[in-house]
């Protein structure tokens, strides 16, 4: 219809105006803080210098990247597998989907507590292991001496907590793929794996893109679970942001960290958009 030209903008207006007022305005103030020296003054990069000069900066960047680069691909694979499973199940699939989406409703703080109950020295993992006679008594699992165990615990907990959001987006995307494609492929004798590879994956690209971008962005903000499981042993960017803002009361450096997180997220988003760009142009 004729209103096609202005209507989409009119529809976006409320959300845009809202985000402008409640996100962009405060954001600009914070962003300015990152470039303003303490106590006011002209533009300066001092806060960024302080940030980079801190010995925790390197480990925080490295750990955040390592966690993101392991967690996100792992979650993608798991979410794809689970989404396929959900689509295969016929009866009571709503119950299956419900169970699998439960972690979506659990905050990262609560999830940290849940997994701490498993991994702590007198936790469930040790209880089970000693019950099975594998170990004689409580063992320290979460220790700075076993960094890889710390990483593994954080990864496990993050995968448990945050795969659900990818799952729902992918299930949604799969629901949009016309069944005829699968039937046609089946007629041509494509195996289930081939059908997944040749039909599901390419047609799922838009959803996959959204899910990946969203998860990557949130993964760079990983904090509560790390704090719960790894304590001060594992520095991450978000943790440093908190520490500078609240423990060291230096809003400038905290803002610099926040901008860094944003910049990394934007960089990765662009990378993902490029890597998963729609080469066919068939689907909008």
């Amino acid at each position, binding site marked *: 219809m004729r209103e096609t030209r202005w209507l989409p903008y009119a529809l976006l207006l409320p959300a845009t105006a809202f985000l402008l007022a409640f996100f962009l305005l405060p954001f600009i103030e914070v962003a300015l803080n990152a470039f303003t020296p303490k106590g006011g003054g002209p533009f300066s990069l001092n806060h960024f210098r302080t940030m980079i000069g801190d010995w925790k900066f390197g480990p925080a960047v490295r750990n955040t990247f390592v966690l993101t680069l392991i967690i996100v691909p792992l979650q993608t694979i798991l979410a794809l597998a689970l989404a396929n499973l959900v689509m295969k199940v016929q009866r009571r699939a709503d119950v299956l989907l419900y169970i699998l989406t439960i972690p979506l*409703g659990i905050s990262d703080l609560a999830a940290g507590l849940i997994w701490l109950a498993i991994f702590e020295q007198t936790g469930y993992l040790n209880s089970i292991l000693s019950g099975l006679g594998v170990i004689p008594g409580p063992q320290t699992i979460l220790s700075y001496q076993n960094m890889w165990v710390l990483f593994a615990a954080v990864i496990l907990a993050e995968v448990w907590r945050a795969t659900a959001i990818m799952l729902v987006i992918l299930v949604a995307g799969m629901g949009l793929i016309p069944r005829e494609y699968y039937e046609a492929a089946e007629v041509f004798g494509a195996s289930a794996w081939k059908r997944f590879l040749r039909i599901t994956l390419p047609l799922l690209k838009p959803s996959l893109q959204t899910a990946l971008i969203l998860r990557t962005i949130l993964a760079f903000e990983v904090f509560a679970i790390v704090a719960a499981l790894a304590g001060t042993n594992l520095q991450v960017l978000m943790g440093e942001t908190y520490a500078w803002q609240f423990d060291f009361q230096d809003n400038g450096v905290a803002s610099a960290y926040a901008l860094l997180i944003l910049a990394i997220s934007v960089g990765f988003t662009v990378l993902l958009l490029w890597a998963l760009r729609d080469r066919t142009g068939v689907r909008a």
Partner: protein
Amino acid sequence: MKAMSLRNPVIRRNGNFLIGTAVVTACLWVLVPLYFLAVNALSSPKAVIGFPKPAVPQFNLESVHFFATYEGVATALLNSVLVAGLTMVLAIGLGAPAGYALARFDFPGKSAFRLVVLMTRAFPLPLLALPLTVLYIRTGLDDTALGLAFVHTTLALPFSILITASLFLSIPVELEEAAWTLGCTRIGAFRHIVLPLAVPGIAASAVFAFVTSWNEVFAAAVLTVQHRTLTAFLLQSLDVSPLPLKFAGAAALVLPTLIFLFAVRKYLFSLWGIANR
């Protein structure tokens, strides 16, 4: 297989053992950690601290009782529901039109809009809290459910936009066009055709907005004073509380979302446009 089919999803092809196993494994993966939480919440403080941990709950309600008698819990619960409800309404009210625009139109700036909306989640909220609080105190939004709901809406909005977009995408545009040719205005077609088809999905995506608000701690702790939400009221001090209370409190916060999600589980599929396949 038979016994299992009563409680677990049943598989398309009978005897597809592999899928059955996968379903059970996936469910256990999600449920076992929650089960441990439940056991801890329902065990005596001594058992929670001790070793080895009990495998089954003792149904000791000491920790639960603590929260039940904690002054202000009821009010905080009410505030939480109020804020989450408002967030739900706002996130859908603002997000659904935007989602509809993304689903139905091709226009310059579309991908930029998507990107910017996603990017709002890439900035740590606690840093925005200070300027927001100053703004709120000056405008009188401070310590109101609506004010907090606004902040929670910024968190929930990217999801509600993306989810509703995919929802509208799953409703064939021809249905709408058919309605136009049959005498509907654009709004009329939306009301008579799109909305009824989208309502279950919108309801489910509203639940996600609800849950987002329910779980948010930081802004809630800063922006509410007398009208605290349950999460700000409890969760923020949980990690400095004794272990048994930690678990009981966490369980108290997880439980409502479980119930809420369960209530809309039927819609979870329609949310994704699968129901009519």
